[in-house]
């Protein structure tokens, strides 16, 4: 048992260190393919044409078959990769071009055109394939492998093609970086800058079609689509900037391709293209969860921080307003019972708010179960109450809302009113520079009327 495990571990090391010629060839070319797909895929995603690669990949089939017919008619018995690739490139480009040219000319939407091109071209291809397979040498030419992909049976010639296409894609993306950026983010501005948007679109599409055709036989038809779509979508969770997005997308493509190729070298039964895609899908899940720019975790934390700050601000305002209504001396403080009935707290919300406020030095526990404000807490509370009441006053005077109805809307807005907005509100209401003290509340405050609390204006 251990012998088998050891043998497997040894095998794994040989694969990871790329000691076999075949593994080295396959892994490196898969990486090149993954990187170039990630690169052009990112531009395509930003251009909102992520699925154009899908249509192009399917549209390659009829050209492939026709090229095969031409090869047979021309007396070529051996598989002629350049001829097949040329056929695939031409028909895939025709398919993509059809989508782009026809969209906007009829009421058909781009997604419908993609579906039409994809399925009709593929149907024509399948019909031609049915005829092509009756020819001698059809099996040997590996037409089938263009659909499923045979990473493991890659030869040096395929690797050279992939390497060449990858180099071309990298070169084009470097030279046309500025133009492609404009094309993706603001095509109208690009046109205004004197760029030929049509040619740029066409060259971006040509790059997509190129990597698609070259990659078809490495990872197969659907799975080349995955490499064009998944790494850019995953990279989007990590950054909001273009250059890092391109790097991350290319890197994720390369890493998933390498991992997939290695895994399928170790487990010969697993279909290599599918394993590569599953690796990419794994990276997508990780990115969606952990990505700092848009990931679920990052957004959950952001949200939680906001909820906590809102809760703490509610507490500070409740203490301030109770004290203000009660008319007591310093220090500003309020009994716990009064705070509890001041607003509808979520379960444990008041305790959590107090814990937070005490922890951040805005509030302190006083004797008799009262919560008091520290000097910092008082400053912050005064600012909050001011914002709240300015907004209330604004709603009453400028939106004609009844004073009894303004508390709730102001309650929601007080947390997001910035200093500039506060100053403008203050200027609009009082004409002053924003140095006004806290204005009085336009409606009755809850605090002092609670049983046992002191009465406003009493004694």
């Amino acid at each position: 048992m251990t012998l088998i495990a050891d043998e497997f571990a040894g095998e794994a090391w040989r694969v990871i260190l790329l000691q076999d010629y075949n593994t080295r060839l396959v892994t490196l070319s898969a990486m090149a393919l993954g990187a170039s797909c990630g690169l052009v895929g990112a531009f395509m995603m930003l251009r909102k044409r992520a699925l154009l690669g899908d249509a192009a990949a399917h549209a390659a089939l009829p050209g492939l078959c026709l090229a095969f017919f031409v090869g047979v008619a021309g007396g070529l018995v051996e598989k002629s990769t350049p001829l097949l690739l040329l056929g695939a490139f031409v028909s895939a480009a025709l398919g993509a071009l059809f989508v782009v040219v026809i969209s906007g000319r009829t009421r058909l939407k781009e997604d419908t055109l993609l579906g039409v091109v994809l399925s009709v071209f593929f149907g024509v291809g399948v019909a031609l394939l049915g005829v092509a397979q009756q020819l001698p040498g059809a099996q040997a030419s590996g037409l089938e492998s263009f659909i499923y992909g045979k990473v493991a049976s890659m030869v040096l010639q395929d690797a050279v093609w992939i390497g060449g296409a990858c180099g071309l894609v990298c070169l084009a993306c470097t030279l046309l970086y500025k133009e492609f950026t404009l094309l993706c983010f603001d095509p109208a501005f690009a046109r205004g800058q004197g760029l030929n948007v049509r040619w740029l679109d066409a060259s971006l599409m040509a790059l997509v079609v190129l990597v698609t055709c070259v990659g078809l036989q490495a990872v197969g038809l659907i799975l080349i689509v995955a490499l064009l779509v998944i790494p850019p979508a995953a990279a989007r969770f990590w950054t909001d900037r273009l250059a890092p997005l391109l790097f991350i997308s290319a890197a994720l493509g390369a890493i998933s391709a390498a991992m997939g190729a290695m895994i399928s070298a170790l487990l010969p039964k697993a279909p290599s293209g599918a394993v590569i895609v599953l690796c990419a899908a794994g990276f997508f899940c990780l990115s969606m969860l952990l990505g700092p720019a848009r990931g679920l975790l990052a957004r959950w934390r952001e949200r939680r921080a906001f909820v906590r700050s809102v809760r703490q601000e509610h507490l500070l305002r409740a203490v301030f307003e109770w004290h203000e209504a009660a008319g007591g001396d310093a220090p500003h403080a309020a009994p716990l019972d009064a705070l509890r009935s001041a607003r509808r707290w979520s379960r444990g919300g008041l305790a959590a708010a107090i814990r937070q406020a005490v922890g951040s030095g805005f509030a302190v526990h006083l004797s008799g179960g009262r919560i008091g404000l520290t000097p910092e807490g008082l400053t912050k509370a005064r600012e909050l109450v001011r914002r709240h009441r300015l907004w209330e006053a604004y709603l009453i005077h400028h939106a004609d809302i009844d004073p009894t109805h303004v508390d709730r809307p102001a309650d929601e807005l007080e947390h997001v009113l910035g200093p500039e907005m506060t100053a403008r509100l203050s200027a609009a209401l009082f004409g002053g520079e924003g140095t006004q003290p806290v204005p009085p509340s336009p409606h009755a405050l809850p605090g002092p009327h609670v049983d046992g609390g002191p009465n406003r204006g009493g004694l």
Partner: protein
Amino acid sequence: MLNWHTDGWIIVTGVLCAVACALPGAFLVLRKQSMMGDAISHSVLPGIAGAFFLSGSRAGPAVFLGAAGAGVLTAYLTEWIRGKGRVDEGAAMGVVFTSLFALGLVMMVSAADKVDLDPSCVLYGALELTPLDTVSILGWRVPRAAAILACVAVGNAALTVLMFKELRIASFDPALSSLMRINPRVVHYAIMTSVAVTTVAAFESVGNVLVVAMLIVPAATASLLVSRLSAMLWVSVGLAALSAVLGHAGAVFLPRLAGFASTGTAGSMAAAAGLLFVAGLLLSPSQGLLPRAARRLWLRLSLRCDDLLAELARLDEQGVRHVPLSRLAHEHSGALGRFAMARLRVSGFVRRSADGVSLSTTGVQRAALILRAHRLWESYLVQELASRPDHVHGQAHVLEHITDKEMRDRLASAVAAAQHDPHGKQIPTEPDATR
């Protein structure tokens, strides 16, 4: 040539498949979710493989349940990734269906020792083999695929008829449907389930990519031809059935012309649907490229006729009664100009003489209207809109073609019945007034 038993069943199965697909497909096209058909047709794979693992059978209700589950899961995951991750819908769909397809491939390959789950059958389908696998229904030997597809077609038709109001409102106006207590999400997932079930029923006969052809292409063609939903549904069903029949004929006969045996029917069904689509795209009266190009050309021709008449009238004002064609170099240029001149002569507005062309009586009247519109606009632009006199010719030149009598009268009253335009040329009077 054709064997009526075999080919008859192939055509019947193809037609049933096409009809079953066309109904949910029409709603995919309308709701801008065409690529969802592609996505679901790929991502039912793990559902089928999973159902096979659990039930051990390649057909039967478990496979349909698995496929429907996978289809709904695709729609749900796409929606979730788009919403939570703020990913573009196309990209979200691409992520989901390629991943699920890859998962399904791995599952199928690892099951391949035990069963004949053949991935290539999934891609291409084998419509030709359907008559070989029969079941007995009421003593009839009916191909299994045909029986299943008939059930699905009837089910889809029933769904469309029973939920027609809901489907229509939720597809065209989701906000209104929420107000009317029709949950658009329920409708969305009902369509997705129907697409998934249809896909898996059609899988064995036409393969997964060609299901997309049957879902999307007839509906796309129909939406080019008609504008009402019910008409679109009927037309898509008809076109789908037609492409099935044409497809089989093409598969059997076309390769023979080049000396080959027949090819797959499924692929040529998609090709036939594509041909019908291209025909619709080119020829549809309202949307087609050719009728629209012809309308545009006709418009340009009438504009050019107007220009020729106006130019002849201007020269006439300068005392040039018979105009040599060389003086009309600008208006008479190109095929369009020559054709416009021929049209004017045929309709009797212009006469040809030895030393050039001249306006006939009707031509003079018609040209006067154009000049009147032109000069009224120039006056109006200068007097009322304070345009500069040397800037108004171009605008008036555009507007003169679309100015009818009512507009001319209103312009005339707006410029207080001015006699001359800003360049000092006389404004012709309205012919009805002179009569």
